[in-house]
């Protein structure tokens, strides 16, 4: 155990910091869900990152990455959030699909999809949920009917983030007549394909953050299937799948939020409820604990370890920490908590706590509701019966 950064790691941090200092846009970009202008501005940022070689530092160089280890990924993320760089419009691609492609993809698939993903030329949407398949993902009904070298996709996906403007999507489809975890395949499809209709869904704040995707006899080549036919469930749940548990939320995000919360508290400590100090400190400690835990996991993975049920403990911990942190911020804001960023009298330096709060509400729900994650912890870590 050695908790000092190596000179190489230090140099890497300095390099990242320098590059970000000179490239991160001074003014925040317009958000990527509300308008296609915002979306394209973020695509442009992905291209800028790619030109600098920063689009996904852990990927092999051949696919647009730097072939670096997870500790350096963490350092990159720390500097990225520290610099206030734009959110990653392609996060579904680079953090969710990318690692799975690297583990399960054929060389043709990797060559076809990874460089375009890294370059920002193809932005990805996820298409996990269906109206009847939320926490119970094995309930998907969308079908992939084999016709020679093609699949004909039909069905209805929902809560697809980025789907309104994105280029490609990935999701589970089942062989007609198959049930539950069997007969599922993970299939990639272009959102421009004939037979696809994308219908935006507004989040509670009115932003079209999600979409429904209706697939009506959409023809895709069999080569778009990732992993074996009918093996979609295990591909999703595999090691690579679990790595998503690590990359889904980098600790730096919460450390920045916690530092901002401390600033907010400092600026209001006089009029604040003294009990809120405890919540502020707890948020800071939790963000710190989450970072330390991820460093421990990253170290273990780098040494060849496999990730296990800690994806579930991580998911619960960061989602609850994020929600608590934002609720504490709203409590500190008092009568100003309800003001949106449009409110003329809202102090401009406050940060958008409401937006962060709305975002945090989704944490305990998506990527497997926390209730499901608790079942997983009880069954896999504590060996309790399925019930």
């Amino acid at each position, binding site marked *: 155990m050695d908790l000092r950064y190596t000179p190489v790691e230090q140099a890497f941090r300095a390099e990242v910091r320098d590059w970000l200092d000179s490239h991160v846009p001074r003014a925040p970009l317009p958000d990527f869900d509300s308008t296609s202008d915002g979306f394209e501005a973020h695509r442009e940022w992905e291209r800028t990152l790619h030109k600098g070689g920063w689009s996904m530092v852990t990927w092999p160089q051949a696919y647009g990455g730097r072939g670096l280890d997870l500790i350096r990924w963490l350092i990159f993320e720390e500097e990225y959030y520290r610099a206030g760089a734009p959110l990653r419009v392609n996060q579904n691609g680079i953090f969710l699909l990318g690692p799975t492609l690297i583990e399960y993809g054929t060389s043709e698939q990797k060559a076809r999809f990874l460089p375009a993903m890294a370059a920002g030329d193809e932005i990805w949407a996820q298409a996990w949920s269906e109206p009847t398949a939320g*926490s119970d993902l094995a309930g998907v009904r969308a079908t992939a009917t084999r016709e020679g070298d093609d699949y004909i996709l039909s069905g209805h996906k929902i809560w697809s983030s980025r789907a309104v403007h994105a280029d490609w999507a990935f999701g589970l489809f089942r062989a007609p007549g198959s049930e539950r975890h069997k007969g599922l395949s993970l299939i990639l499809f272009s959102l421009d394909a004939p037979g696809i209709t994308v219908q935006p869904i507004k989040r*509670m704040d009115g932003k079209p953050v999600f979409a429904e995707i209706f697939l009506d006899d959409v023809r895709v080549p069999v080569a778009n299937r990732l992993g074996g036919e009918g093996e979609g469930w295990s591909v999703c749940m595999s090691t690579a799948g679990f790595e998503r548990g690590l990359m889904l939320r980098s600790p730096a995000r919460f450390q920045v939020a916690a530092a901002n919360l401390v600033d907010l508290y400092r600026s209001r400590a006089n009029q604040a409820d003294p009990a809120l100090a405890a919540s502020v400190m707890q948020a800071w400690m939790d963000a710190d604990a989450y970072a330390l835990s991820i460093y421990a996991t990253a170290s273990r993975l780098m040494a060849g370890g496999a990730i296990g049920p800690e994806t579930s403990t991580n998911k619960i911990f960061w989602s609850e920490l994020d929600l608590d942190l934002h609720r504490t911020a709203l409590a500190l804001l008092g009568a100003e908590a309800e003001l949106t960023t449009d*409110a*003329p009298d809202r102090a401009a330096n406050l940060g958008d706590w409401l937006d962060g709060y709305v975002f945090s509400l989704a944490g305990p*729900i998506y990527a497997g509701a926390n209730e499901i994650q608790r079942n997983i912890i009880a069954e896999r870590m504590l060996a309790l019966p399925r019930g």
Partner: protein
Amino acid sequence: MDFRLTEEQEMLAETVEALLRESCGSADLRRMLDESAARDTQRWEAIVAMGLPGVMAPESLGGSALGATEMALIATACGYWLLPEPLVEQAGVVLPMLAELDAALATRAIAGEIVAIGHPTHPFVADADSAVALLLADGEAIHLVPRDAVTLVRQPSFDPFRRLFRVDWTPSAATRIGHGSAVQVFWDKALDRGALFGGAQVLGVAQRAVDMAAAYAKERQQFGKSIGGFQAVKHLLANAQIKIEFARPVVLAAAASDASEHNRARISHARLAAAAAADIATHAAVQVHGAMGFSWEVDVHFLLKRATALSQAWGTAAFHRQRVAAHVLSAKLGPDCTFGAAGQREMLHEVA
């Protein structure tokens, strides 16, 4: 000692409930938003026709002279149905104040005209745009200012039905209707009433959240059964319901008691307990609804937003916690003091 609602009180609550159930459904709310309307004229007229704005006003002005308990029941129904119009503030705070300060305007307010109120504890004024006049504070003085004598700057709220404004105005002797230290009692009473009825309102929000979530949990199927059958969902909603059950008697007791330091602490307790219940209930409702719960198309978020707004208006949570603490650290406490220590001692003395 009888801690029950009277039949008349229960009937009143049911009547208001029925009116709102009919006129304040999801479609009604969404139509208002589409039209960016300040209020639904038809619904407001029905509310006025029922005499609700004057429920606490004296009979001499055309009011019903009912008490805070009745008003709390009405406020709870308004919270439950997410009523956008400012009935709670008008009937519960503005009219009792106007009745003592401006009888003519009180009569007009009973007839449905809006008089907005800018309390010194809050930087903004709700519903100022559709008001005919505003009750405003300038130091210790109370001013009643016509709508056209002020400039309004809209401050958008998380709650799309809230209409908050910064009010720019110039105090003058012509608008001053009360001054001197005696006036402080008006603002204090307004704050207590706002907190009490706001608490009652947010209690209604909490119950609606649990009811919506329970209904959805019964219907929504996952893993081959309704999710309401899972203990995790059951216990989440049971915990929210418990919070409601132990906020309700505090709200009712605060409403049914006379103004006293003891009861002011209870008003704060009622507001805190109701807001805590709403916080837990609305977050539980979002969680039970899954992704639906943070989409625009399901009404759950309206509840969450109303709870967020009401929980910090009419005194922040910090203010009310402080008021409870001040009472607890100075008052006589104990099992014989539930309904006030001082009165208790006096009456015991009389008896003895």
